[in-house]
């Protein structure tokens, strides 16, 4: 049974790359175009892992994580922030919001796959 991953990013090219890579590794990937879309899709079905961008229109990544953590179903689902900011501010924000970890952009597909494999097997 393939694990499902929700990939939230407003950039179509990044989304496509993430989805292509993870699908190639045998995961099921659902894409969402921003935080709001991501939240709605997360509500509609459970995911094993959520990958989210930070800077997005409508709802940013941190808000999405907070909103997800407020849903019982997502209390302990791994959530990774894909971010271009590796600063401490982002990290403490991410941690405070309840993110499981972070992955700095730009990343290559191999690294993404390794990290995802590490987190959800």
């Amino acid at each position, binding site marked *: *049974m*393939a*694990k*499902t991953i929700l990939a939230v990013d*407003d*950039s*179509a*090219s*990044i989304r*496509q*790359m993430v989805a*292509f*890579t993870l699908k*190639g*590794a045998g995961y*099921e990937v*659902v*894409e969402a*175009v921003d935080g709001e879309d991501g939240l709605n*899709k997360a509500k*509609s*079905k*459970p995911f*094993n892992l959520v990958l989210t961008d930070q*800077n*997005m229109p409508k709802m940013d990544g941190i808000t999405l994580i907070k909103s997800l*953590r407020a849903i019982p*179903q997502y209390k*302990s*689902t*791994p*959530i*990774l922030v894909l971010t*271009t900011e*590796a*600063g*401490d501010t982002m*990290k*403490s924000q991410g*941690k405070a919001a*309840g*993110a*499981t*970890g*972070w*992955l*700095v*952009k*730009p*990343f290559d*597909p*191999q*690294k993404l*796959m*390794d*990290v995802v494999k*590490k*987190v*959800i*097997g």
Partner: protein
Amino acid sequence: MTVDMSQFYEVFFEEAAEHLASMEGLLLKLDIDAPDADELNAIFRAAHSIKGGSGTFGFTDMTGVTHILENLLDKIRKGELALRQEMIDVFLEAGDVLKAQLDAHRSGGESVDEARIASVCAVLAKMTSEETAPATSSTPRQNAAPSADKTRFHLAFKRVAKSKLENLLRELAENGDLKVQEESGNEHLSLMFDTTMSETDLLELIQYVVSLKQVVLATGEIDPAEFARDAFGFFEGNPGAPEAPLVAEEDDGFGLFVSPAELKSQQEADDGFGLFEDAPGTEQIKQVEATADAAPIKPAAPTPKSTAAAPANTEGASIRVSVEKVDQLINLVGELVITQAMLAQTTANVDPTLYEVLLNSVAQLERNTRDLQESVMSIRMMPISFVFSRFPRVVRDVANKLGKQVELRTIGEGTELDKGLIEKIADPLTHLVRNSLDHGIESPEKRIAAGKDPKGTLTLRASHQGGNIVIEVSDDGGGLSRERILAKAKEKGIPVSDSMTDQEVWLLIFAPGFSTAEVVTDVSGRGVGMDVVKRNIEGMGGRVELDSKTGTGTTVTIRLPLTLAILDGMSVAVGNEVFIIPLNYIIESLQPAEHDVKTVASEGRVVNVRGEYLPLMAVHSLFNIKPKTTDPSKGILVIIESDGNKAALLVDELVGQHQVVIKSLETNFRKVRGISAATIMGDGKVALILDMVALVRMARK
């Protein structure tokens, strides 16, 4: 598994271009005194997305520019710097540079002007470093707060590919003084870098090009031993772990926040990501690591079936198809229309009572063909906003340059026209807009003196009128000056009289080499004037009209056919040949009385139409055909108009009105004087389409 990144390039190019366009649009709309926070955020996000994408897909030159751009935008959106007019100018310039870089990557060329990139980056960096010292001091790092002075960093790289290194050095050089200390081959390099950048910014810039594992950064001398041992140590300040270096593996922007007990298992963790200690979700990782293989994860297990039902990507609503495919489709439909016409003509002679079913089917076919033709043509239709969208920028730049205040209004942006026309109309329209800005709208002082709002208005309006699309460029400026045009025309030796109507006077500005501007500016008035505009538009089968009122403004109206592929025409017979006259040039058709046709000594014939003498051209003599009649009073005269000039064409008879599919004569044969194209008639015969512009010109000579 290796992933070929190039497959995502096209999406990235499209996306980046969209981001750049929206960034430009937002920048132009931005109110400098009270910028809207949402708009600033949107601009920031656009730059940010380009940065993220270009970094991921390896276009590091764009990453460099967007990085600096983003820094400044970030300061502005956080309110650390006030937005100024110059900033918008630089942002727009940076957008142009990015566009150029994007195009270069797209076409595979390497033609971006390095000096231009460097100068934009320098200005951006300078603006960013202005009066921001206190703002960034919240960063806990000791060197992070940039003083007004430059900070000296020591950098050492190892095992960095040469191309990447060169790229990086170029980026760095744009942000400070670079001194290479040691180049020990083997792709090792150490250097000294004086910059106003903060350490955080510097690291961010570097990590876009090389892995942070490959670099050592210090404000003091680098201990070579340290470099040899391992290459990290600048992410020590781990927010979640005050004691003990819990996150030993954290580097390269990947980190795990784990409990000390977990440390061991985490230590083999790869670089590039991180987990927050005891953050929700980490238990799962333990599980994963314990069971090694994929084990069922959660009570709330995912149901794979529902994945398929997951909402499809919203972008799936449209597909990208190459223009050639669409053109091929249009061509085929054209052939179908001709075949249908042949069929209709053949069946016209059969007995309706015997072949009722056949005739019904043919009628049905005609309807379907017409619908199909319309649908296929609509594929090539694009909203005119594709052209209009460039004008806010043009108006802004030109108005700034001329010291004028201009507001641009666009109406009917959704009006659709053929893609081919969209591409061709852009240049003439730009010319008209520049003309209006330069010659039409007055300076604020003059406007105030004339009792007008100091801010002029330029209106672009598009609409459909019948089978035509009408585009208007109008301004509320000073209007055309009759006296000046007449004086200029006399000076240029163009025959004029003071009794000419206004309309005739206005048309003079379309004469070749005509420019009324007292001073030739670099905005317009370079001699290539309205005549080129007119010729271009007529080349598209369109017409230009001009209306002006002194003191209140000028309106230029362009009329274009909806499409270049089909034409409404009148078929006329001359001898055994059939010609097509484009319908929009025809004024009337008449049979003159014998005494209305006069011969002017060796200059040909003229015909008196209600007091107006028009040159008479016999189509048969033009193309050397044996006609049924050479006597105008026995044939038909078709009065045509082009460029405001009229002429009468003598033909044998009018056959009928058709929609004809245009087939280029030039691509299939060669250019023929007096013929613009060809078409295939219902009976399968080829008919030539007469070139009205050329014929009228020939008639007036």
